[in-house]
């Protein structure tokens, strides 16, 4: 827990309340344990997310080293299987989810002009539940056979298809760690999401009607709704699995007439909306950053909102496109292929709208904008490969191949992680009061982007050449050697990029120049208060009359509210 204070200690408000001296370790820990402040919690979410990111990123590096050459003996099969399971699970539940919740926590009250979240204590509870669920998951590594043999870490893949998770095929407690930790984390996510919904709907400042909510907040509203609808199916199937493993129930026990496919349905009813839960926050950040650095309002605000809501709805009805190969009827396959293709429409509209926003603007290539531009390009590729995967016949070839691996890494890294970086650089001055260093950030951007493409682009091709995912080794001569080698080389670019990033976070905090209230000349409410904001956010609760309240103030002769 102490590690994360590295990123957090600067956040502590002045000591009026509790003993110990400012800045001392005891006091920081004390602050973190006791705090219900949405900003502190938001930073704690982001910091612990980044911590887990580094750990599971290193796991990915080991995976790639093992796959660099055919028949490599760097890792044992069991170790490899545990690595990819933990990498996937951690990246989704311990990195993606907490970081987006961190952004939501930190920014939503500021953007809607509120003093805190609606339920501050529930907020703290949500964070700690998530954090402990992460510790519980990683605790599995400290199980019986020690670290090298990887303890009893789960090894069933992040979607843990039954009956591989049944007692008969997964002895010991490895799968239990996975399922219990996810169940626990789910409780925290639902608590936080209810909090987001209530905050957004009930704590808006005067004049902040729904039609003036920043798009960021709109998209998080959709995300929160998706979480409260999609997370319970996950919890339900974890409960069923626990009953199976502990009480001898037969939900997924194929020997007793249970169905293996049922798990897949339940899991993906959660799993596919989860993809949108993770990517909509990426859209949210892009929808804030791109207008500011293009110096124009977002193009087609109502359409953007409608598209987000549409994506939310459609995403609840497409889950079985992960299951085209399980032998559904042709009607089932056709239905899910169609519903999946429909998602492409609102997503496409969004990409066009972002380009429309830039059209006619004056683009400033600051760090957040650079990451957003890369995001647009990469998300375009991710979306198009997604269309290919939606064509059920094509998916019969592509599913569970490296093409899929490439596709979802383009979504989750190229889409989500890049916008997370954009968001971190964009709001860094607000949260910490210092500007991030541009040169270091540029190195981070270049190395990480190049490394990302070198790593993941070749995986499309090895997928085309028939390489299945989750294999710990492969024979030479099947056409995969070169692509895997290139892929592994790319990882090291990414690692160096991340080193620049981490160094930049620390360096800029110590040496960076003061940011001031509004370093980017932006328009949403969070820039109206100090950097970092005081614990109460605003001295007086603001009042807004348009989507860009700060524009109105900066251009009183040409305010937005006359035209909206």
């Amino acid at each position, binding site marked *: 827990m102490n590690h994360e204070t590295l990123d957090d200690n600067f956040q502590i408000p002045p000591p009026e309340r509790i003993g110990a001296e400012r800045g001392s370790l005891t006091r920081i820990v004390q602050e973190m344990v006791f705090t219900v402040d949405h900003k502190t919690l938001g930073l704690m979410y982001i910091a612990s997310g980044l911590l887990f990111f580094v750990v599971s990123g290193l796991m990915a590096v080991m995976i790639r080293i093992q796959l660099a*050459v055919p028949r490599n003996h760097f890792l*044992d099969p069991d170790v490899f299987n545990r690595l990819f399971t933990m990498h996937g699970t951690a990246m989704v539940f311990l990195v993606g989810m907490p970081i987006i919740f961190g952004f939501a926590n930190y920014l939503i009250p500021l953007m809607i002009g509120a003093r805190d979240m609606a339920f501050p204590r529930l907020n703290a509870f949500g964070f700690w539940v998530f954090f402990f669920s992460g510790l519980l998951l990683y605790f599995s590594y400290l199980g019986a056979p020690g670290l090298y043999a990887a303890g009893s870490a789960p090894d069933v893949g992040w979607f843990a298809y039954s009956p*591989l998770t049944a007692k008969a095929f997964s002895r010991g407690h490895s799968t239990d760690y996975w399922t219990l930790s996810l169940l626990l984390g789910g409780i925290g996510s639902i608590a936080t999401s209810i909090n987001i919904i209530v905050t957004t709907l009930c704590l808006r400042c005067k004049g902040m009607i729904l039609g003036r909510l920043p798009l960021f907040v709109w998209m998080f509203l959709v995300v929160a709704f998706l979480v409260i609808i999609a997370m319970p199916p996950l919890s339900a199937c974890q409960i069923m699995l626990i009953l199976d493993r502990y009480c001898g129930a037969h939900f997924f026990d194929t020997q007793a007439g249970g169905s293996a496919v049922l798990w897949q349905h339940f899991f993906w009813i959660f799993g596919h909306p989860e993809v949108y839960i993770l990517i909509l926050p990426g859209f949210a950040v892009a929808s804030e950053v791109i207008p500011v650095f293009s110096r*124009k309002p977002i193009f087609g605000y109502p359409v953007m909102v409608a598209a987000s809501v549409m994506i939310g709805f459609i995403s609840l009805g497409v889950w079985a496109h992960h299951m085209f190969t399980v032998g559904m009827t042709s009607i089932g396959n056709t239905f899910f292929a169609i519903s999946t293709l429909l998602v492409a429409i609102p997503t496409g509209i969004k990409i066009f709208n972002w380009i429309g926003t830039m059209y*006619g603007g*004056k683009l400033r290539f600051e760090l957040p904008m650079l990451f957003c531009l890369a995001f647009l390009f990469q998300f375009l590729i991710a979306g198009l490969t997604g269309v290919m995967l939606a064509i059920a016949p094509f998916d019969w070839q592509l599913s569970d191949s490296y093409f899929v691996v490439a596709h979802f890494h383009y979504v989750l890294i190229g889409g989500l992680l890049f916008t997370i970086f954009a968001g971190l650089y964009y709001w860094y001055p607000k949260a910490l009061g210092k500007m991030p260093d541009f040169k270091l950030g540029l190195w981070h951007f270049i190395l990480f982007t190049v490394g990302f493409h070198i790593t993941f682009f070749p995986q499309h091709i090895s997928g085309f050449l*028939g390489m299945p995912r989750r294999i710990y080794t492969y024979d030479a001569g099947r056409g995969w050697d070169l692509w895997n080698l290139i892929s592994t080389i790319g990882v090291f670019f990414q690692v160096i990029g991340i080193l620049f990033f981490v160094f930049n976070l620390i360096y800029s905090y110590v040496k960076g120049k003061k940011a001031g209230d509004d370093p980017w000349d932006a328009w949403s409410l969070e820039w109206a208060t100090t950097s970092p904001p005081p614990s109460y956010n605003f001295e007086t609760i603001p009042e807004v009359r348009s989507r860009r309240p700060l524009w109105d103030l900066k251009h009183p002769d040409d305010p937005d509210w006359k*035209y909206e």
Partner: protein
Amino acid sequence: MPGPPDRAGLIQQKKAWQFWNRSCRPEGDMFSGLNRIIFCVSRRIAGAVLWLVLAAFACSPAYAQDGGQMRPVADMFQPLSRPAEMIHSSSMLVLAITAGIFVVVTTLLVYVVWKFRRKGPEDDLKEPPQIYGSTHIELAWTVVPILITFVLILVTSRTIGEIQNRKMPENAVQIRLVGHQWWWEVHYPKEGIVTANEIHVPLSRRDGAGERPTELILESADVIHSFWVPQLAGKTDLIPNRKNRTWIEPFATGTFFGNCAEYCGTQHANMLLRVIVEEPEAYERWVQKMKAPVPVPQAELAAQGHKAFYANSCVNCHKVDGTNARGVFGPDLTKLMTRQTIGAGVAPLTPETLHAWVRNPQTLKTGCLMPDMKLLDSEVDSITAYLLTLK
């Protein structure tokens, strides 16, 4: 593989294996791995350039007609079977469409980024016109994606139906494929043949009369596996407590490589599958050979091995037709030596690898369900000799 796999045939197979598998058996650890990285780079630059071109355009004549018709590169853009071809044509459509979209949007993006970049400090003195949007333009870029989506929906629906609802003709070969951790059990119910990890099917001709597809009934004995031979057909899962069905109709002979494509536990990576497509006559010969009874071994060593085989617990898991070995947990060994590989593709089947496998399968395939039997050296030798007679 044409011809009966006798001793000479085995040697030939071994050579063929080595031909494409030259650097596949490393003894070393990570450091020899690093050496191999350098080795790979130098050796494959030429091949790489070629493959880049092939993969990028995905339109070249079928690969690997040489090397005993081994087809290790399972390129889904070189389909050699009917369902794979159907998938291929719909995938070419979607590739063309997505490529078009990619070019248009990327061009637009680059143009916008270039045209509207901040050109100098004078740009900081003014803000660009504040445009809210245009319903007109929004409509345009909503209608066009809908139009494209609609076309894709039509094509997808048709292709799904064409592939899934294909009726099998009378003469179709029928195979029951059962997935195990981590090997494939292959049944020919009509012929009464049982084998493992390698499927023999006849060639089909496009002329109607010569059409002879193969129907596969897919089941699983334990967890979910997935049948995938990219050049022949897309995936279909093998799911316990459920019967799935797929079919192939290959138009070229050769040995096609496939993998289990659904993560199924420790040795998922070494659950390889081969489909051997032969001329109809060769296929019939193979069927006859598989049906022939296994001779009782005459040579002394083999006879000893025969005894040792039945004295040890081998028979609990393995089956040899016409004997007391009736286990069903492991692969059927009746015609063991007709196969190309051992351990579901982990190594070529040669006297040496067989010997190593009998001594301790865990060295070849860590974590596989056959335990180290801790046999005496003499037993290992004799059992190997016995197994070599099973053809």
